[in-house]
C-alpha cells in the first residue's frame, strides 16, 4: 500500500539514521560503487558502510562529507540537507525522559512506532499496547515486573499512555491489528478490568485509523502461532518495512528483504484467516457477554 502521510515530525534518532543510511546507499549505488570502494573514502571497513547504510550506527559529520565527495554530490544544498539530517539523527527522542523505565532495546521501537504510517501487529497473548486501558496495562506490567515499585509501574503506564496519543494526534498512523481470541478471553487483571478492556477495543475499532480483526479459535493452527510480531511501514519509499519481535530481555528488528517478506507473508495469511473487520464488534460483544 502506498501512503500519503506527510513526512517530518516524529521518528527520533533511529528512523533519522535509517533515512540517512538509505540515502547514502542510493547515492552509492547510483554511481555503481561497491561498499568496499566507498569504505576507502572514510578509511573504514566494508562492514562500517553496511552498518551506516542500515542506520545501525550514528554518523560523524566528516564521514558524511567524505562519502558525499566520493559519491560526486556537489550541490551544497543537498550536502547541507544530509548533514542536517545526520545531526538530527544524533538528537534524543521524545522518550528520553522515560529512559529509567524504557530499556535500551525498546527505545528504537518507540522511535519507529512514532514515525510509521502503518503499524500492522499480530498479538497472540496480549491486547496490543497501543489499545490497552490503564488498568489492563497495570495488570500486565505488574505481571511482567514483579519487583517494581508502585512509582515505577506508574511511570511505565504513563509511557505507554504517551505512546497511545499517537493514534489520536493529527496525521495519525494507521493501526491494523489482529488479536487472537485467547488474548481477549484471558481475564488479565480480573473480570472487571478485562471487561473494561474489551469495551475499550470496541471504541478503538470505531476510530477511522484503527482496523481490528479477531483471530478466532475456530481458525485452528495458523502461521502466527510462532509468536506475536509487528510490521512497521514508513512514508519514505526508500525505507524498508521493519519487523519487530519482542523477547523477554531484548527485541529484534528485521529489515532484510527476505526476512521481511517471510513475516509479511505470515501477516497476510493471518489477516486473511481472521474474521473480517466488519465482524469485530459482534465478536467482541459476544466475548464481553461471556466474561
Amino acid at each position, binding site marked *: *500500500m*502506498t*501512503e*500519503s502521510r506527510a513526512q517530518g515530525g516524529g521518528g527520533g534518532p533511529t528512523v533519522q539514521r535509517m533515512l540517512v543510511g538509505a540515502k547514502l546507499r542510493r547515492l552509492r549505488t547510483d554511481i555503481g560503487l561497491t561498499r568496499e570502494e566507498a569504505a576507502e573514502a572514510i578509511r573504514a571497513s566494508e562492514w562500517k558502510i553496511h552498518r551506516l547504510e542500515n542506520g545501525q550506527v550514528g554518523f560523524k559529520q566528516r564521514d558524511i562529507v567524505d562519502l558525499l565527495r566520493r559519491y560526486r554530490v556537489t550541490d551544497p544544498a543537498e550536502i547541507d540537507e544530509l548533514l542536517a539530517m545526520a545531526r538530527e539523527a544524533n538528537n534524543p527522542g521524545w522518550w528520553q525522559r522515560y529512559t529509567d523505565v524504557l530499556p535500551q532495546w525498546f527505545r528504537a521501537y518507540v522511535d519507529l512506532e512514532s514515525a510509521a504510517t502503518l503499524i500492522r501487529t499480530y498479538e497472540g497473548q496480549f491486547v496490543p499496547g497501543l489499545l490497552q486501558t490503564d488498568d489492563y496495562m497495570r495488570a500486565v506490567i505488574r505481571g511482567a515486573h514483579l519487583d517494581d515499585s508502585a512509582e515505577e509501574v506508574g511511570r511505565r503506564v504513563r509511557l505507554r499512555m504517551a505512546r497511545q496519543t499517537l493514534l489520536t494526534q493529527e496525521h495519525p498512523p*494507521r493501526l*491494523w491489528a489482529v488479536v487472537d481470541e485467547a488474548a481477549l478471553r484471558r481475564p488479565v487483571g480480573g473480570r472487571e478490568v478485562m471487561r473494561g478492556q474489551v469495551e475499550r477495543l470496541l471504541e478503538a475499532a470505531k476510530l*477511522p485509523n484503527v*482496523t481490528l*480483526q479477531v483471530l478466532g479459535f475456530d*481458525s485452528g493452527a495458523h502461521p502466527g502461532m510462532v509468536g506475536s510480531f509487528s510490521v512497521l*511501514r514508513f512514508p519514505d*519509499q526508500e525505507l*524498508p*518495512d521493519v519487523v519487530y519481535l519482542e523477547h523477554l530481555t531484548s527485541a529484534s528488528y528485521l529489515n532484510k*528483504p*527476505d526476512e521481511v*517478506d517471510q513475516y*509479511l*507473508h505470515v501477516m*497476510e*495469511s493471518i*489477516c*486473511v*484467516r481472521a*474474521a*473480517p*473487520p*466488519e465482524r469485530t464488534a459482534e465478536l467482541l460483544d459476544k466475548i464481553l457477554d461471556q466474561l
Partner: protein
Amino acid sequence: MSEEINTNVAHPARVYDYWLGGKDNFPADRALAELMIQAIPNMRAMAAANRAFLSRAVRYLAADAGVRQFLDVGTGIPTSPNVHEVAQAVAPGARVVYVDNDPIVLAHARALLTSQDAGETAFIMADLRQPKSILDHPALTQTLDLRQPVGLLLVAVLMYFRDGDTPNPFEMVATLLEPLAPGSYLAITHPTPDFNAEETARAVAAAEQAGVTLVPRPRAEVERFFSGLDLVEPGVTPVLSWRPDEPPADPSVAYYWAGVARKP
C-alpha cells in the same frame, strides 16, 4: 473464510503495487515487475497513469454525471486516492462496492478502504469470470440500488482474459452491464500494442513466462467493450489524454486506451 494465500507466484495486483511504489509485494511479484520494466521502461509511469485516470474518471462521474454508486472490479492493493475517497470527496454519501479475486487484496481492502460518515463501502471476493456471482452477491445487493445509475469501473483488468475464455471478456462486461439502470456508466482502461508493438510483445512474453495472462488489444477491440453505449467526450483516447488535468507532453508514452461511456 480461510483462503490459502500463495505468494510464490506473481499476482497482477501485487505486481501493480510494486510499479506504484508500494511495499505489499513479494519476490515473485518484484521479479515479474522488473522483467516487464525491462520490456517497457515506462512501465511505472504507465501504472501511475492508470491510477490517475481512475481518479479523473470517478471524479467526472461523481461531479459531472451525478453518479453516486460505483462497482470497482479488480480493485487491487489499496492505493491512495482510492475510489471511495475520490467519490466521497464530491458526494459524501457515495457508495462503492470493491471486487477482487485475491484474498490478500480483499483483506487489505476490508482493512483500509473503510468509509466515513454518510458513505458506504463493501467488499466482494469474486472473479470476473463469474459476473453473475458479483451481481447476485448480498454485499452488492445490500449496498447498491440497481434502479439507480452505477459507475462500473474496469480499470486495467480486462487484459487478464483471452478472447477464447468462457465467458469471453466482452460477455463478462455485457453481463455486468445488463442489470444496470439507464444512465449508468462504464469506465475502462486497457493496454494496447498500438503505440509500441515491440515493447508490448516483450512485456507479454515476460508475463506469460511467469504464468500471468496478458492480452493487449488494439483500439477497435477496446471500443468493442463499449458496444451499445454512448462514449462520452473525448471518446476512446490514450489514457493520458482522457480529460487530463494538464495536457500531456506526449500521450503515446503510456500504452493504454481509456474511455468512459453511458448506458442509454
